[in-house]
């Protein structure tokens, strides 16, 4: 939902970042306001996932210049855990398996950390179980997965549901979902998309990173950005995703190159 007067949540300015001295992001600019859903599209290696990891603070990536402001605060000065506490959520493309760490206990610890930050009371084991049951329904997830180790032995679809379950429990201000649609069949995609739609509020924002338009049939974006070579080449509405689906990424790269040539 576009409301020009709504609060600016995330402002990325001329962001450059590299991994092992290899530049990946080469000047990303993006503004995300409360209530908005943005989709970032692009071919493999365009820098989409790097952008999500840099926002979340992955230690393998070095920001070489530029800034990221989250609700007016310098996000890049914060540790990854501080970013999460203040309301930045990254839904992983490949959620990590952590043998030996109970999923239920992990979810409870993470939820209580976030609740501390928002001034809410911490939940004890029983209270948390009540909360998690309601959130499980949102993503139609089998409660047995709570008893297992974090993501261990989960199918691709269950891992993604577990990511959205975490989002539902942590109630972030901005959710960055990195290829949440990858590896999902159409039914699972609808369940995950429905969860994301239910969690979208006028006070929060969503950044969807995806290759394909099909996710955007389920979660309607307000803006679509196309990335190439570490930059946002073009921004448009939902129709841009449809054009991309029909004409491919070559089309947009050629369009931009020919405009630059004139």
């Amino acid at each position: 939902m576009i409301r020009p007067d709504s609060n600016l949540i995330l402002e990325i300015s001329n962001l450059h970042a590299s991994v092992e001295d290899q530049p990946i992001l080469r000047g990303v600019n993006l503004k995300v306001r409360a209530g908005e859903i943005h989709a970032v599209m692009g071919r493999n290696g365009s820098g989409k996932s790097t952008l999500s990891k840099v926002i979340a603070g992955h230690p393998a990536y070095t920001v070489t210049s530029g800034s990221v402001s989250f609700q007016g605060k310098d996000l890049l000065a914060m540790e990854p855990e501080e970013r999460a506490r203040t309301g930045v959520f990254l839904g992983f493309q490949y959620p990590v398996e952590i043998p030996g760490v109970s999923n239920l206990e992990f979810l409870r610890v993470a939820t209580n950390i976030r609740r501390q930050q928002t001034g809410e009371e911490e939940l004890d084991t029983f209270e948390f179980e009540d909360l998690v049951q309601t959130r499980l329904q949102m993503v139609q997830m089998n409660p047995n997965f709570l008893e297992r180790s974090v993501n261990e032995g989960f199918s691709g679809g269950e891992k993604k549901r577990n990511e959205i379950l975490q989002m539902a429990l942590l109630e972030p201000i901005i959710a960055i979902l990195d290829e949440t649609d990858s590896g999902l069949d159409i039914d699972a995609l609808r369940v995950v998309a429905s969860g994301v739609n239910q969690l979208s509020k006028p006070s929060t924002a969503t950044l969807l990173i995806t290759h394909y338009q099909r996710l955007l049939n389920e979660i309607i974006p307000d803006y679509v950005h196309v990335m190439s070579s570490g930059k946002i080449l073009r921004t448009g509405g939902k129709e841009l995703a449809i054009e991309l689906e029909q004409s491919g990424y070559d089309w947009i790269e050629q369009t931009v190159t020919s405009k630059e040539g004139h």
Partner: protein
Amino acid sequence: MAACRQWVEYLPPPDGVLEKCQRISRQALMNFGLPTHELEAWRLTDLNRLKEILNLPISAKDNELKIKTNESFVKAPNNIVQIIIDPLKNPLESTNLPTGFKVLSSKELQEKLDQSKLYDSINENWTIALNHASTEQILALKIEGKELPPLELVIPSQAGFFSPTRVILLLEKNTKLDLLQVVSGSENSAQSHLIDIEVGQDAELQHNFIALGGGQASLLAQIAVNQMNGSNYSFAALQHGWALSRLEPRINQLNGKAKTKLKGLQISNGKQQLATHSSVQFNGPEGQLEQLQKTAASESSHCIFNGEINVPQIAQKTNAAQLSRNLLLSNRARIDTKPELEIVADDVRCTHGATISNLQEEELFYLQSRGIKAETATSLLLKAYCQEILNNFHVDASRWFDINNLLARIK
């Protein structure tokens, strides 16, 4: 050699039921001298620390025993038979043994010592010789029954002294027992502990071994187990906090068709050196082994694992798996791990593997991205890593250590 000679000369004259053991062992020690790095079994051991052990006086009667844990933990629940092993006292002075537990008479004990290959092993193994040269008391029990209470053997230390302790347990046919041993070191104590266990036909023993040191404490311990056919022996050990510790589980499946599980965890920090030298001998067909050794080495510490498995011609259809998994948490820490499989039989399945790595960056980041501090995330991952071994500990064993406190020391 001079260090050993001097140490032996300081010992009181051989005496009592163990007189013959003492005499043979002292001679063996004088012949051996101190182990050297040229001996494969001692190649990585900190020999200076070993030498320091021989500089300590033998534990004295008037010194207070120290159990380095919360006092409230020491008290055993009513359903547990707890025996505190003081190197100079009869450990059964203040313990009433329940039905199923019987002390071996002097005659039975002497027969047992003479029957076994003990006198040969003294001349082959420095750790055994050291223990037998100095041990004056021995706890020897014959155990029989299926509904027995758990047995807990507590082996405290004396700061500034060398304490040798020796135990023999004979599990009769079809017997089922849970055994917990707790060895506790403090300050500059040194302990030599030797336990011989016979697991009778179709008998089952769940053996937990907790070795928690402190300060400059040292421990040399050997667990010698003979398994009869149909028997089931599970050993789970935790080592932490010793300036020098060396645990030697030596399992002998006497006539095959036995099952052995060995699970070990070494958690080291500071300048500790923790070692496990295991040996499994299959002397009959259809024996099974499942072995998992884990270490987490931080700061400037050193962890050693040497896993010997012997499968001679007679041990056809042996099924053995050994895995050594190691976490190297600092670039100043050191881990040496060595599988040592000698397989002569041709119809067997023997697997082994070893990995050394640091904590996975992606796992840490995943937890941090959910608001969990880096330090807490590290502790969570370490605990998860240890849990695979700790799951093998009996619920009563957890009274003796708090894994969260222990891991909080790991940087």
